[in-house]
């Protein structure tokens, strides 16, 4: 519990490489990063700079070769795999670039999955998921399957799935990469509204500079390092009651 109350995620000296011997490639070369609670932090940089690796490590999906990560006050290194899984299930929401919706489930069922993982009864989970989809403008599409939805609609379902269990940290991987400019902007506006309302901490990995204005701070990555952190607004967002 060493993380200060206003720091949701702290990384110190993160080192990660892949391969062995001459094929070894260092991807992260000593990352230090603080993500402030209740704010939206963008992690930006060119392809191959290590964004995906870093986000995988910060969420406990990937181990490190060195350094430490404190996620919501808990040192990830101290957790057993099952505890990491529970930490993710209870506290993290994910929006993936490729959405990764379950093709056999309709929009409501997809959005309800994190609640089912937590053991919420199916009826209640579906009710809460449907409410959230309604707010995301997906009321008419709640019973549709992913193959019947446009990219923007699928992304809204993915956002609903990421927020339905009221996580403390939201992780978005290239949320606009699979969307056209207009839809991308709409989705990000919706995303910003919801994160502002809920006070959730958000980490967004992107290289789409058209959406940088949605960030409270931007961490610029290059060649496996954080080059600089740019603050876009000073006051942390307040959660609405």
């Amino acid at each position: 519990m060493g993380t200060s109350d206003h720091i949701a995620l702290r990384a110190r000296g993160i080192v990660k490489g892949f391969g062995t011997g001459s094929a070894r490639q260092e991807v992260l070369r000593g990352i230090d990063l603080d993500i402030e609670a209740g704010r939206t932090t963008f992690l930006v940089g060119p392809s191959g700079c290590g964004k995906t690796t870093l986000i995988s490590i910060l969420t406990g999906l990937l181990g490190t070769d060195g350094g430490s990560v404190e996620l919501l006050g808990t040192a990830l290194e101290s957790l057993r795999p099952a505890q990491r899984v529970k930490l993710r299930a209870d506290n993290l929401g994910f929006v993936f670039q490729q959405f990764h919706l379950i093709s056999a489930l309709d929009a409501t069922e997809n959005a309800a999955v994190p609640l089912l993982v937590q053991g919420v009864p199916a009826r209640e989970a579906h009710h809460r998921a449907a409410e959230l989809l309604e707010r995301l403008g997906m009321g008419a599409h709640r019973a549709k399957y992913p193959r019947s939805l446009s990219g923007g609609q699928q992304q809204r379902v993915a956002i609903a799935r990421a927020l339905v269990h009221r996580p403390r940290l939201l992780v978005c991987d290239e949320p606009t990469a699979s969307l056209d400019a207009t839809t991308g902007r709409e989705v990000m506006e919706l995303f910003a509204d919801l994160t502002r309302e809920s006070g959730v901490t958000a980490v967004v990995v992107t290289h789409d500079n058209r959406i940088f204005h949605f960030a409270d701070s931007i961490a610029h990555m290059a060649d496996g390092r954080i080059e600089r952190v740019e603050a876009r607004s000073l006051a942390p967002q307040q959660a609405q009651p």
Partner: protein
Amino acid sequence: MNSVALKMLLGDRVKFLGLVFGVAFAALLITQQASVFIGLMTRTGSTIVDAAEADLWVMDPSVEYLDTVFALRETDLLRVRGVRGVAWAVPFFRANAPVRTVGESGSPGGELQGAIVVGVDDSSLAGLPEDVALGSLADLRFPDAVAVDRAGYLLLWPGEELRLGRVLEINDRRAVLVAITDAAAPFTTNPLVHTRYSNALRFTNNGRNALSYVLVGAEPGVAAEQLALRVHKTTGLQARTQNQFHWQTVRYYLANTGIPVNFGTVVVLGIVVGIAVVGLLFNTFVLEHIQQFAALKAIGVGNLRLVGMVLLQSLIVGAVGYAFGLLLASLFFELGGKSVPLRGFRLPWQVAAAVAGLTAMIMVASTALGLRRVLFVDPATVFRG
């Protein structure tokens, strides 16, 4: 999450049906072949089954199975009757002979078949089958009287109604049909002719020393196994209980024919094809959903729960496929059992239970690879576009 697992499985209907078909095909093949094999082996001792009232079968010590006999002497019958604990002992004759139907005009030249001629004790008629389709077995006491089994009747008079009083020639000797039996189906499809012992000797041109077996009834309270030992000790003849002799005959066929190898090969092929087809399809199913499984892992679904989901999917495929395969096998025996060649074949519950176990084995083997993929999929792959 079980509902999610089921929807993932049922959502891909083509693959689900393919998986169910694979399991059903394997279950059908194994069930059908195993049941037919058991039916065939049971048939090897059909004459033993028909002579249900006999507690013991007494025969020459060299006899290995029902169909090859070494004749006893008539005096052996008397020796057996003298053994303590024997309530009754009667002669029993079994041999093959050509049978030809005789037309309404009295001229021979109809259907010619090789028949199994069974001769039972003239006075007691002990050793006859219990089920009679038409007529009365008591009428075998009339001169030249014979009974033919229903399947044999249809071979001798194809497509004709069951009718008594018809005339046959057995080894050029006249015989009259007085009853039609529903005897247990023999191993071969030959007509089964039952007659009195004296008639049987005459029909088959056997002279002295034509006694095939002695059928024995035990006195009340005397165990058949103990009596068999006593008969053997007293007479030096081979004595077997009904069950022992049936199994002895079955074991002979198992050891000396290619039947178990042939059927066993098909059963093994059923298992191998089942594992190959179902395993391939299940692996494809998992591969096609691997990113969804990875996403579930990232979201916070633990390995244990994922294993549970995959095993549930496997269980559903196995159960539905097995049920479907068993249904088809049951239909085969229900409908096919009414035909003459397949009469008496049935699906024993033991086979159904064993195939359930084999299906479970097929599913475990088929699921193993897919399960491994799910367990080892890296959840971080969901971040790779």
